[in-house]
């Protein structure tokens, strides 16, 4: 049984996910909706930004950069933009999907709060194209919010105006990378831009200063404004303040999104507690787990007692990333898992940079032949050598040879699989087949 003391403030960002029809304005208002915005509009914009700075809210997209600091880096300009990243495509991440479909007003309220603090008069919500229902709900909520006076001209009579546009993606993992997302929003192929000079805070959308924030990040803002940044910062541990949604999937009994206070819950709690994952599927032993999306190096059972904070996980050589935890039980072939992840990167590489474009395909080919029993013993060193050419040194965090971080993310699962399960690679090659096939 669980010995976790659940913070009385929880859940914050996911509080409406289980409420029926919370995507409708009526339900949203009856559960405290738009109160944060009303309070924010009574404050000075810089004081709203201060609260977010005090909250130490870390960006929820994957990089975990403090949102308040990101805002403070926005270059002053006459025209600047706010873009919300709802392109959620990191494999095994599905928190934004739920937030968009079930609580779109919270996102819209967060966007208006952020726009007010930043002095932005046009904001875009980039929603993944595959979320057909999400796009419908988000646009319907936006229409309601306009009618209610929470978006548009002279919001609630405050003398502040912002227009919001819901923009659909069209199916490309790379568009979750912020500069690629901006390219896509400009109606172009989603090729990431090189930094410098294209730091969004300086040269973003249409070359104007732009803040790009994740859906979950802005969804936290109404609560932070209402309760104060200090209340948010009081939760959590070290620099990982507040609470966060963890998306648990793979071979657990109860996969799902679970909001927990940062640092107060371990991977063991998340995977095994009845109130969260409920244990391993088929009651088998845990083999390994991915702590933060497929770009993150894997962990073994020895890391189960790590608390869920950015530092604790970084110290052990991986990352919290997008907060998606994938569980492998003992029946899973680690070679197959690593091959599948490499196939994903191969399919999603945009093709701009040689190490990523060529390397991803080469790695996928080698991994596929090992998995299907056609590998050669030298393939193990070869695949690591190809990885080393994308991210020299194979260290963590990876060194970068490419414009964006997609390329350097490719080696992590391969290196993890080889380091943790080398004997399985050898067995595949010696026996000429997948040793986990029934």
């Amino acid at each position, binding site marked *: 049984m669980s010995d976790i003391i659940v913070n009385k403030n929880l859940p914050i960002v996911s509080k409406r996910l289980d409420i029926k029809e919370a995507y409708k304005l009526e339900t949203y208002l009856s559960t405290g909706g738009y109160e944060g915005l009303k309070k924010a509009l009574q404050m000075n914009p810089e004081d709203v930004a201060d609260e977010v700075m005090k909250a130490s809210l870390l960006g929820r997209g994957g990089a975990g950069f403090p949102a308040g600091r990101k805002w403070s880096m926005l270059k002053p300009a006459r025209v600047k933009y706010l873009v919300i990243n709802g392109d959620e495509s990191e*494999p095994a991440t599905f928190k934004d999907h739920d937030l968009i479909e079930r609580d779109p007003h919270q996102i819209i309220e967060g966007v208006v709060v952020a726009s007010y603090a930043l002095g932005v008069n046009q904001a875009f919500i980039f929603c993944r*194209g595959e979320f057909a229902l999400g796009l419908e709900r988000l646009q319907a909520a936006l229409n309601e919010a306009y009618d209610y006076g929470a*978006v*548009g001209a002279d919001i609630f009579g405050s003398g*502040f105006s912002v227009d919001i546009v819901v923009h659909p993606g069209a199916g*490309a993992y790379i568009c979750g990378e912020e500069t690629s997302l901006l390219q896509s929003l400009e109606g172009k192929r989603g090729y990431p831009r090189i930094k410098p000079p294209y730091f969004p805070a300086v040269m973003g959308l249409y070359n104007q200063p732009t803040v790009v924030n994740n859906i979950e990040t802005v969804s936290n803002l109404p609560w932070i404004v209402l309760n104060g940044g200090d209340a948010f910062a009081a939760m959590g541990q070290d620099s990982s303040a507040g609470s966060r949604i963890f998306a648990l999937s793979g*071979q657990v009994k109860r996969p799902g*999104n679970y909001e927990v206070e940062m640092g107060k819950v371990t991977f063991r709690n998340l995977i095994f507690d009845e109130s969260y994952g409920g244990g391993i599927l088929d009651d088998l032993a845990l083999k390994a787990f991915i702590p933060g999306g*497929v770009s993150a190096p894997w962990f073994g059972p020895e890391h189960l007692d790590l608390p869920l904070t950015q530092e604790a996980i970084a110290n052990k050589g991986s990352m919290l990333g997008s907060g998606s935890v994938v569980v492998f039980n003992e029946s899973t072939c680690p070679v*197959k898992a690593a091959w599948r992840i490499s196939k994903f990167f191969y399919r999603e590489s945009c093709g701009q940079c040689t190490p990523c474009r060529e390397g991803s395909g080469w790695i996928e080919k080698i991994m596929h032949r090992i998995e299907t029993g056609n590998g050669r013993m030298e393939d193990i060193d070869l695949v690591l050598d190809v990885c080393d050419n994308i991210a020299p040194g194979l260290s963590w965090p990876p060194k970068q040879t490419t414009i964006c971080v997609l390329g350097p993310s490719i080696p992590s699962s391969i290196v993890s699989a080889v380091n943790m399960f080398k004997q399985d690679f050898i067995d595949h090659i010696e026996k000429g087949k997948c040793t986990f096939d029934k």
Partner: protein
Amino acid sequence: MGHLSEEIINKANILLEIYPNKRSALIPLCHLAQGQDGYLTPEAIVEIADLVGVTPAEVRGTASFYDMFHLEPVGKHVVAMCTNIACMLRGADELLEHAQESLDVGIGGTTQDGQFTLEEAECLAGCNNAPCVQVNHRFFGPLDNEGFDRLVEDLRSGKLKDEVPEHGVLNRVDRNYGLKATPDQVQAERDVMESAKKERLAKKSEAN
């Protein structure tokens, strides 16, 4: 009368107005055109190019980058099956194999009767319902073999025609208004806010 319907042209005119740059409407317009025809027809590409002010080659070149746009005709129902890690761990490969057999079609192929196109998809963010499947971008899952066959049967018989509309993720997305904050209003507000901020800063430095 052009190739795109009047309804789409009306939606297009709003889209062209709400972005600071017309080209930004390119991808939403491709979604709308695909909603009408099921795929991006050469005629639609020419019209979109005219609307946003680029060449047809640029529209095609942009659209071909994205997985969701079809440049060839597809079946009435595009069945996208995720086989990425979270679904793989829950039997997605076996399900995809079953789907190929039961629909009698390979990955990327369309059934003879034009009802189904089968695709292998990357993570669709439905991992809590793995293995998950999208039909015309509507979620289903978790599915086993029997569940998949039932789904196919329901799609064939038209039982799900409300839940699963025909192509186009923007067909039911309705924005019939342009921007509400006019540039003059924005400018006036900004002047007021900036001078108020200056005053506050001046007071603050005086107090110190």
